[in-house]
């Protein structure tokens, strides 16, 4: 069985800062893969390189065995992508945006019609389908972005912080969609810093810190009998501030 996504020694520096440092990772086909790590660990940089948005200084990315940076069109056709912090063509309505992405992905117009109706319905966006995306809330923007990533029925979903700013109800809907996607033979990799979410949803994960993989594998292998939160703190060697530091913070609560 080939892996759905393989990152091989990818490296990227911004000026003097090495954001991703010879990072290697294999995402098994059919897995729901979580990428966790502290802020600034290089999660977004890693996913940007994996999806062809950012050229690595060094390293290879294989999607379904196709090299993303050697044959971009073939590799990108297999991926559905939801980046974080990038704008959408937000002067289109939700429906128009879906149609636009579908056409760029060469989905037959008739299929776009039915798929976008079902996606909008599943994500609870039907009522706002004809409003401009620029007027959407940040949670709705995430959801329409997810719909765009799904419209061409990809084999691999790459999602950067898909649950950020999403309300609990929509979060449950998205979790359901991701589980169904994996049950249907697809593969998902997404980044998050909410351990409980990853623990509950994922079967595989990787912990990254300072641009390197600290631990990777199946959920049970990585957490090694502990809670993921506990294991995460152990892996990163994070110490909770000891007594005697930040004592002046208490004065404000005393005086009030």
């Amino acid at each position: 069985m080939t892996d759905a996504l393989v990152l091989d020694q990818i490296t990227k520096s911004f000026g003097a800062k090495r954001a991703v440092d010879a990072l290697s990772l294999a995402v098994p086909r059919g897995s729901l893969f979580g990428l966790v790590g502290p802020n600034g660990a290089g999660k977004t940089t890693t996913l940007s390189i994996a999806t062809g948005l950012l050229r690595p200084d060094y390293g290879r990315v294989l999607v379904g065995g196709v090299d993303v940076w050697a044959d971009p069109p073939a590799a990108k056709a297999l991926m559905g992508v939801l980046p974080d912090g990038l704008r959408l063509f937000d002067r289109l309505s939700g429906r128009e945006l879906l149609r636009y992405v579908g056409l760029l992905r060469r989905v037959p117009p008739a299929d776009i019609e039915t798929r976008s109706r079902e996606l909008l319905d599943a994500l609870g966006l039907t009522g706002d389908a004809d409003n401009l995306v620029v007027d959407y809330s940040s949670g709705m923007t995430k959801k329409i972005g997810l719909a765009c990533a799904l419209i061409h029925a990809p084999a691999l979903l790459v999602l950067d912080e898909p649950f950020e700013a999403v309300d609990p109800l929509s979060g449950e809907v998205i979790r359901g969609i991701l589980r169904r996607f994996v049950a249907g033979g697809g593969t998902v990799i997404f980044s998050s810093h909410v351990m409980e979410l990853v623990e509950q949803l994922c079967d595989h994960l990787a912990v990254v810190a300072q641009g390197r993989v600290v631990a990777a594998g199946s959920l049970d292998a990585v957490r090694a009998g502990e809670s993921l939160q506990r294991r995460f703190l152990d892996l990163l060697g994070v110490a909770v501030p000891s007594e005697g530091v930040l004592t002046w913070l208490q004065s404000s609560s005393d005086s009030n």
Partner: protein
Amino acid sequence: MVAVLVGLKLRLLRNSLRQSAWRVVGLVLATAYGLFLVGLAVAGMVALRFTGVAVGPDVVVIGLTALTVGWTLMPLLTSGMDDTLDPGRFALLPLRAGEVLPGLVVASLVGVPGLATVLVALASVVFWATRVLPALAGAAGAVLGVLTCVVLARVVTTSLGALLGGRRFRDSAAGIVAVLASLSGITLGMGLEAVRRTPNAAELVGSLAALAGWTPFGWAWAIPADAADGRWGPAAAKLVLAVVLLVGLLRAWQTLLDRRLSSPIEARGGGERVGQSGWIDRLTGSSTAGAVAGRCLRYWRRDPRYVTSVVMFLIMPIVLVVSMQLQRHSGRGLGPVPWEFLGPFSLAMLVGLSTCQDLAYDGTAMWTHLTSSVPGRADRLGRLIALGVVVGPLFVVLQVAAAALSGRWDLVLPSTAVGLAAALGGAGVASWVGAILQSPTAPAGANPFRTSNGGGLQAVIATMVTLAASGIFAAPVVILAWIGLDQPWAAVAAPVVGLGIGLGSVALGTRLGGSHLDGHWPEVLKNVSEKHA
């Protein structure tokens, strides 16, 4: 607080220069240009002082008043105001507007326009310092004048930006400003014509200076002029007026600042629904280039930056034709061609310019094109198709109007030939240049008077290359069309050559631009995203 804010501004400036070599080049060019203008102004004032020309004081007052008007208008006309120290960013700090205000005023002077204004104001003090009292009046006028410049500009931009709340309103603001700007062009033309007709120029300058001195823009600057002539009453009156104006402006700015400090988030628009506009989809089809064209067509209608372009396409030709006709001495036209035909020609010259900016306007939204590997050529072609759908009918209307107004239907064919060469030629080159040079642009719907700090030099270069190319491609067709007025062979050749040049440029430009994009999509995305610029 003043030192903290000025230090912050300097540090932000230094960091932005470190991030991009383009910024350094831009700053060097701006400094050179500023020094050149300041040098001219200072040399002029020194010369006027020591030659003792009678109109000297009048010219100085008019010039400084114009400078103040410039401070007010420039941020509205150009891409906006340097917003490095956006007060909204201080919203979470326990600061009152009164505390940050002095620092913001001084920090506004840090920068090329601010320093240039200070230098010119200092030179004006030297100009007035012939005796003690005018020198003192000059110093007071200079301080008041410089402060008025800075605060007036801030108040105008903040109030227009903030008070025009919702998105709908902000979207139309850019278009309104474009119209006002073009109309002021006509007004200027009429004014110049009036000056030309006046027999006594010195007298006119005198009355103009008197008028300028009594406008709010000129109160401060006119104080020393009155003092030098011993007109103490008007001098005192203007001193009072200038002080009241400055205090009032500071109050207004403080109120605006307070509001900005307490509600820094820009208003969201209401949920207006859009029609299905299926005609666009039917028109552009479902090919990749067609999809891009359909998306662009919707943007031409909904994105204020594109709407402004359309307004410019409409207004510029009319302004040019009207102002040429206003000037009596310029005759009925250029040789045998009436001025009316300048309309379609100027539109054709402008067509390429919007294409230069297309990718920058997309901003980071272009990741959609990257992840679906849109062929560069389809991207380039789609945008040109949309441009053609927008501009084509306009061109026909202007062409027919020119012919109908001048009664010269025989000129329609040669004029169209020239227009095709300039428009298609420029659009082709823009497809190529626009693929290579981009700079980050403020997103649609942000305060239109705000510029994303620094940068923009790439856009200027792309614009100039495109304009030059339009002219160069049009030149041979102009010559052929001219000969064609007598020689039938040239009259036939002109449209053929014009169409050939235009289509050739589009074919080559979209191919070169497209293949550049295919190889450099990630770099283009990086160029337009603010973060890494």
